[in-house]
């Protein structure tokens, strides 16, 4: 058994070095494809950060001053619920200061300055409002009414922020996703071609192997390992690229004034690690698929 594993790795390595030009091309292509896949996920997450407060059809947020009295809060609550034909009272959600602070920690992950100014005591609490009506004008006029209530700090409308961000987000996601898919297919194709060439170069050996009774798996495994290695190396390279990209982005964003909203585009490093692991997995998978197709096709004698 050990002899077989040693054989597979020895053969993989020999073949890997023999075809250096094609090998490098296959690795570079998969690296670029995977880098794009990773970037797609990071951008997606960044936009999600911007939109986190607008989850669940919330279209209006009423921010309540941190020094509002319980009576004022209860008055706001009643006022909102007093328009049941426009507002969905069931889905009305009140985040107290602690909950609002938890949410702020996520939104301002890349903006420690703003975050440090907020405490669970001075942060405004908030009502998240889900309207029933489809008429934006009605919601807008309602928001004007809420703004004049005592204790209300501000009223934010989803329409204003949401539209731009979500349209942009959807567009960027579609473009990067399509591009990365195309590049992934190209990477599979290049790995396939590299493995096919490697097998063709060794067709005499493969013929002899088949005649003396080597199993197809025995013949196939070194080539599949080689393809896997291509994908994995591509994955490692793209992880490096992703890390550099994300660091540069985080540093660049830090230069903006706090509270401009740009800072919420920063992705937490735990998420980056997750994306990197996923990219390594996708890389290995792409390599295995490419080489498996090549190996099974070529072995049909």
């Amino acid at each position, binding site marked *: 058994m050990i*002899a077989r594993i040693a054989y597979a790795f020895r053969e993989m390595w020999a073949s890997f070095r023999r075809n250096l030009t094609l090998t490098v091309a296959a690795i570079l292509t998969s690296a670029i494809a995977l880098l794009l896949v990773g970037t797609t996920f990071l951008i997606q997450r960044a936009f999600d950060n911007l939109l986190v407060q607008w989850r669940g059809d919330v279209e209006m947020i009423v921010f309540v001053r941190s020094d509002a009295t319980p009576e004022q809060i209860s008055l706001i609550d009643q006022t909102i619920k007093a328009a049941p034909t426009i507002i969905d009272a069931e889905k009305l959600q009140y985040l107290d200061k602690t909950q609002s602070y938890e949410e702020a920690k996520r939104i301002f992950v890349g903006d420690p300055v703003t975050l440090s100014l907020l405490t669970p005591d001075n942060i405004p609490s908030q009502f998240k409002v889900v309207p029933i009506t489809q008429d934006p004008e009605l919601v807008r006029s309602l928001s004007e009414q809420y703004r004049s209530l005592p204790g209300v700090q501000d009223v934010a409308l989803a329409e204003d922020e949401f539209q731009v961000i979500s349209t942009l987000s959807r567009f960027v996601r579609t473009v990067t996703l399509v591009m990365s898919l195309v590049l992934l297919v190209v990477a599979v194709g290049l790995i396939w071609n590299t493995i096919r060439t490697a097998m063709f170069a060794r067709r*005499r*050996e493969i013929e002899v192997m088949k*005649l003396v*009774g080597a*199993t*197809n798996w*025995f013949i196939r495994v070194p080539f599949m390992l080689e393809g896997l290695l291509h994908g994995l190396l591509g994955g490692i390279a793209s992880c490096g690229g992703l890390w550099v990209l994300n660091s540069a982005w985080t540093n660049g964003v830090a230069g903006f004034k706090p509270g401009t909203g740009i800072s919420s585009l920063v992705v937490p490093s735990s998420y980056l690690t997750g994306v990197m692991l996923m990219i390594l997995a996708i890389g290995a998978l792409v390599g295995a698929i490419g080489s498996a197709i090549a190996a099974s096709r070529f072995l049909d004698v």
Partner: protein
Amino acid sequence: MIRLESVTKRYGTETVAVRDASFDIAKGDFVFLVGPSGSGKSTLLRLINRQEQPERGEVWVAGQNVNEMAESRVPYLRRNMGNVFQDYKLLPNKTVFENVAFALEVIGKPRHVINRQVPVVLELVGLAGKEDRFPEQLSGGEQQRVSIARAFVNRPLIMLADEPTGNLDPATGEGIMALLEEINRTGTTVVMATHDHRVVNAMRKRVIQLDRGVIVRDQERGVYE
């Protein structure tokens, strides 16, 4: 050991390579398949080691129906067969020892078995002392001996030889035939395709003659004609 029942093999829709062939080869037999080029000798050998599948009929080897065997069992069938070719099919970048060892290596034999069996078989084929040569440093006859050593190192039940003397001068060819006869005496069944008159006439073994894919003669202790 080898039995064909009404086997027909066609390439494409027109060319009939083998038509309605039936024969039975017992364990330990030495059989010549003779006939001109294109008469179907090689196809018969390729049917026996399942490089080809027949269109009709059945091929049996060592009690197993070769055609109905699962693809995954084919390698194990082939471990019972040694193959020798006119063009040797040696690997040019491996030494004599490595070429023979390769056959054991790729069926997963451990190193100590390889190191024990390869010198024994090289001694048997008369190549002791030439382990470290590369194929291009050997004569044609010596190369064929390496290929026979590779085919025999795993002690197969059957030896299939396709024109093994085809590229060799008569004297060298005789040496190869003596070697095959020696292997046959160890109990290995030998099936050899050839159109070499002298070899067949000198050996007086069973002869199966083919003409355009049809068996026209099956004779004990035959000659080429």
